């Protein structure tokens, strides 16, 4: 029986598509998975130039903002936060899926995380990087952003710890740091593999530097396993805490629509939901372009789709609860915002788009055929990404634009600079991602090989048991 058939038999036994279709030998796997970093292509170059151009637009828009002042954005009083904070929450939300996949699924020993954790983590890092720009950029005086950290100032002034913003800074920087170390640690064995197979001396030396002298000894593997496990344990609560803290930026305020205790779970669920959507958005094209159907299988698609369905349902439940509580709480301001302005106010069209997409999109994943269709998944994920951006937008803007005194009510209208920055960060994100695909093994080779061994072993045992059973009969 060839490997593919073997695997199919296993899948049938567990009634799930397999997490790994190939049973190719280690050397073949290594070669195949390292190929993208040795062999470039014209497509990559074109995409690289396009995204570099988009990144330049972002850089220009940012430079213009910093030099002129954030008056070049559409913000006003009362809508003092809008696009920048929307982008921040959106990107940081996207940053959640990576660590969720690598850390929580690691601890839960979910084998399907293996093939996709590396790029999901990279996605997290780049998303966090994008996200972290906005709290700085949106400041009136961004060059003083470091005041938000409790650094040893000679004036002995500390941040004001009752505000959620210093918590935010701490949470994001911690998350970013842990994610980076976690990601890099996982990379070390693969970087060593790249070093060992590098075609030129320069590449060998470069990868050698980054491989930190990894030789693959048992002691190395022992330490590696321990460190990886500890980091996984550290990262797990961070997945929950970061977006909880982000939600405090709103929940500690007293604005109608913000001041709500439901925000932490609501935001965490929303973050993982949007993060998984972004994983799908990236995974489907990568799988296709690099022909990785054996490594990233239907099983992965289905698992991610199920996660999206679960978290999406939580988000939808949160919508229902916050609306209900606005009525149940009896505050006239809260009722106006939730039951009138959002539903029929000037931004209601956005609200209804969000409610619509976030209801329909995840619920399509009840259907196995949709869960297993890469195209459908990709299309739905784009809708979810857009809806989740719009969700943050209306959440922020509807509460601000009509708060307590009607005399101050005003609309918010974005400017071209606002648009250039959000589009620019998308390009920047893809730009970084392209660099990642080109220079770093984006599928964890050692883990895939390990998985193959485990699967092969399981399949062997299965086969033996089957044989014994046949003999016994």
């Amino acid at each position, binding site marked *: 029986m060839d490997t593919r058939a073997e695997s199919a038999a296993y899948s049938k036994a567990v009634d799930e598509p397999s997490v790994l279709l190939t049973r190719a030998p280690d050397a073949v796997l290594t070669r195949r998975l390292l190929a993208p970093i040795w062999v470039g292509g014209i497509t990559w170059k074109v995409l690289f130039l396009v995204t570099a151009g988009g990144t330049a637009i972002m850089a220009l828009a940012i430079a213009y903002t910093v030099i002129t002042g954030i008056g070049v954005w559409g913000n006003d*009083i009362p809508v003092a936060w809008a696009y920048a904070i929307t982008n921040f929450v959106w990107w940081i939300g996207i940053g959640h899926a990576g660590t969720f996949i690598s850390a929580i699924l690691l601890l839960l020993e979910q084998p399907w995380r293996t093939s996709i954790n590396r790029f999901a983590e990279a996605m997290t890092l780049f998303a966090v990087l994008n996200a972290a720009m906005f709290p700085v950029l949106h400041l*009136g005086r961004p060059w003083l952003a470091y005041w938000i950290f409790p650094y040893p100032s000679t004036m002995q002034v500390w941040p004001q710890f009752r505000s959620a913003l210093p918590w935010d800074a701490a949470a994001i920087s911690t998350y970013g740091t842990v994610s980076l170390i976690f990601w890099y640690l996982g990379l070390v064995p693969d970087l060593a593999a790249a070093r060992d197979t590098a075609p030129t001396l320069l590449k060998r030396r470069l990868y050698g530097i980054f491989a930190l002298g990894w030789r693959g000894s048992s002691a190395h593997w022992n330490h590696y396993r321990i460190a990886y496990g500890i980091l996984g344990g550290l990262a797990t609560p961070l997945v929950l805490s970061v977006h909880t803290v982000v939600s405090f*930026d709103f929940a*500690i305020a*007293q604005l109608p629509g913000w001041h709500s205790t439901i925000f932490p779970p609501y935001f965490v669920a929303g973050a993982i939901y949007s993060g998984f959507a972004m994983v799908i958005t990236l995974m489907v094209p990568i799988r296709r372009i690099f022909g990785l159907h054996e490594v990233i299988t239907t099983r992965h698609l289905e698992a991610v789709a199920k996660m999206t369905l679960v978290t999406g349902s939580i988000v939808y439940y949160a919508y229902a609860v916050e609306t209900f509580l606005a009525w149940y709480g009896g505050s006239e*301001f809260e009722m106006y915002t939730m039951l009138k302005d959002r539903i029929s106010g000037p931004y209601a069209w956005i609200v209804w788009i969000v409610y619509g997409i976030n209801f329909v999109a995840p619920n399509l994943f009840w259907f196995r055929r949709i869960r297993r269709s890469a195209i459908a998944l990709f299309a739905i994920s784009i809708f979810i990404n857009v809806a989740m951006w719009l969700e943050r937008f209306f959440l922020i803007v509807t509460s*601000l634009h009509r708060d307590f005194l009607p*005399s101050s009510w005003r609309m918010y209208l974005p400017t071209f600079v606002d648009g250039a920055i959000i589009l620019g960060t998308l390009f920047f994100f893809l730009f970084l991602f392209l660099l990642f695909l080109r220079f770093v093994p984006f599928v964890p080779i050692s883990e895939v090989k390990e998985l193959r061994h485990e699967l092969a072993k399981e399949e062997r045992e299965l086969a033996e048991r089957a044989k014994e059973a046949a003999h016994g009969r």
Partner: protein
Amino acid sequence: MTTPTGHRLPLLEDDGWSRRHVLQLLGMGALAACQPPREPILPYTVQPAGVVPGKPQFYATTMTLDGYATGLLVESHVGRPTKIEGNPDHPASLGATGLQHQASILDLYDPSRARLPRRREGPAGWETFVREFGPLLPGAGVPPPGEGLHFVLPPTTSPLAASLVDAVRTRYPRAAFHFHAPLYARAADEAARAAFGQVLATQRFFDRATRVLAIDADFLGTSPFGVRWSHDFAQRRRVHGPADDMNRLYVVESDLGLAGAIADHRLRARPSEVPLVFLAIARALVRGSPRAPDALRGALERLPADLPHAPWAEAAARDLLQHAGDCVVIVGDTQPAEVHVLAHALNDLLGNVGRTVAYTPTAIVEAGEASFGLEPLLAAMDARAVSTLVLLDVDPVRDAFADDRFGARMAQVPQTVCLSLRETATAKASRWFLPGTHWLESWGDARAFDGTLSLRQPLVRPLYGGHDALEVLAVFAGLADTNPWRLLRTLHQRTGAAPTDATWNAAVQRGLFPGTAFAEVAAAFRADAVAPAVNAMATRARPGGIEIALRPDPRLHDGTFAHNEWLLELPDPITRVSWDNPAHVSHATARRLDLHEGDVVEVRWNDRSLRIPVLPTEGVADDTLALTLGWGAWVARERDVVGTDAYPLRTRAAPWDLAGATVEPIERPRPVGGTERVRVELASGQPHIDMHDRPILLHDTLETFRNQPDFVRPHDDRRPSLYGAWTQHGPQWGMSIDLGTCTGCATCVIACQAENNIPTVGRIGTAKGRAMHWLRIDRYRLGTGEDDVQLLPQPMLCQHCEKAPCEYVCPVNATVHSPDGLNEMVYNRCIGTRFCSNNCPYKVRRFNFLEYNDYEAETPKMQKNPDVTVRARGVMEKCTYCVQRIRTAQIEARIERRELRDGEVRTACQAACPTGAIVFGQVSDPNSGVAALQGLPHSYAVLQHELGTEPRTRYLAHLRNENEEVPA
């Protein structure tokens, strides 16, 4: 012209240039220093040994508006006037100011002021001017000296101007003097002449009136006496307890004014209807008073039976009759003479004369004379009989009646001299141009509405080397010494007002000569005047079509302040629109004509037309378009014309109310085919006026208040808190704002802007909602419907919450609470997250989205208050309760080893408020004024019960004194 060091700069005198001169001029520009006037000026308080840097001094001086004096105190920092306050000794001020007074300081430093004197051919200095016009004018010597010499001045009350006019007349007996100001109430003078046989000023004592009937009279707003009248009116409107009485205000008008907005009963009436409603009231009054003179009764009874709004008029009349002798009937300056005559008759009938109304001689020089207006000049120009025309501080090319065609007529005059603060249209059309002086730059005098003789002492030498109109008159008079100070000194020595240095110095220090108010004149109303007046009113045709009401602008007055960025950016006190003067139209009419906010319409009246955006707004009579005058100037900051100039519609025959106009929206071709409306975005300071039934501006009737004095209590309760109360030590500051007496005039807004270095953000910034006003006037719509509603004002500023939502969300401690209860803003610490603004329920925080201060232009910097930080971009700012004033007072008290006295600290808004609606002080002192006010039963804090913010700023609920008999 001299350099700041006092060296003579011969450049302009010699009309020649050299390297040395150019360098001198450049040096002058770089220094642009403020120099005190050469003559001894005296501060309001005791003069210290020398000027102490950092310690401001106050000088009493006088500003005139339409000729009438208002006494002011001007704060000066090391020779730099920075802020204007009222002069408490002056009858027109009583310590308060008006909008234009506050804003006028900005005009002093306006870089767009004219600088260079010129003859048409090119630059020419003052000396050249004196050489040319000082000697007896050539060709004018024989036979009649001064034939063809005409002067146009603004209406003046200045004895010095009058004496110089006389001096010119002595030299040129045939010289003619005309007085021109577009808003000057000629009709009132005519009416006085008709009613009393002489030109008299009517004095109204609103502080003695329990009932006021205002016919198209915004006596609290656009009137030149608005400051004093607002003060007096508030005296009878202030209610501190259920036992207090309150006046009642009836207003009949076409466009909503400040008085109309707070009126207890207001009737919307088309301009042509207003006199008819007044006649209806008059007839009801006559029918109710048996003593009514036969002439009046006869004239009114002959009227047709069906006068409009008769039930309303009768109810108002009954009320007035019940308060005969302590009511006031006032008619606006925009009404023709016959309406004024009827008002005189009614005040006479009601027995108000001698009690709430009195007559004095008018303070306006030559008022009522045949030569007073421009008409004789126009005739002379047509006859080519004008050889030299001297235009001093007037701009008739722009603001004379359109059918005067003043510019065209003026072009035919061989010699024209114009003196003006700016390069006005008249200046551009003149052969000689001299830069004028700001009133803070030159000596002068003027009389207040009641005749009180007031002195104007300058605080700086002319910044741009200008000269005063008085000097020009002195040149024409052939005086060797044209120095206005010496002229003034000599004049008042001669008249006996200030015979000695001591009396002079006392008058300069106080800004006025006490006891110089005119005595009341016992004027008998001529009964025969009333019949022609009533007939004139009644026979006025009742025209169809759209009627146009041209009105003075509450902000720019007649256009004198059309370059003042503070006033341009100030939201209109009623419509809240900044940087524009859209035509007001009622919602009903807008719907009928399918007009929407910002639609540009073509207004046609006879052969004249105008393009102007429209604004459907509250309180405008149906089928009426209300336009304000004075807009349409080119403003440097905007690099554009701001607003629409309505003067081209104004003609001698119809100066205020135009009937039979048409209004048509303008269409333009769309790029994709078809047409679309031409529409402009109006920069509204407050797009929403619906209160959504939220307890923000609490209000009720006097009746309810008497039955239930603490009707505000449910919205002011403190909610139980998990946290204990703060223990408070030392003085605790707080503010009380009386919504019952606030007229929403917005003087406080400009006062705050001047005091606290608040920048302007321009039209686009305002439209985006980025105006920086720390204190704003919110207007909320009361009542159902769209047009017949009340628009009540509510000053909104930092409430200085004890539990401030802004403080706990700031990540860097940039907004913190002071031990004396101020919510403080630490600009240096602010990084600009704007979280504080988001969390402020009152949205009173203002953010520097861009760099709003001009660091390039030299002179505007000089206006800045050195006690207040100029904020850079990227930081949040807001009302500080004028902390700089608190600390100054505390330091002074400490030096003198005493406690602060109540009322010693007055915030800028409080000091400027004409009605005294704002009171600031120590809430911790139970004997203080503010503590007493905050303890009143109808004192409440906005959203206190709902949000628990515990604001230190509390409001007294608005009360209205409704007359049940008046039909809704």
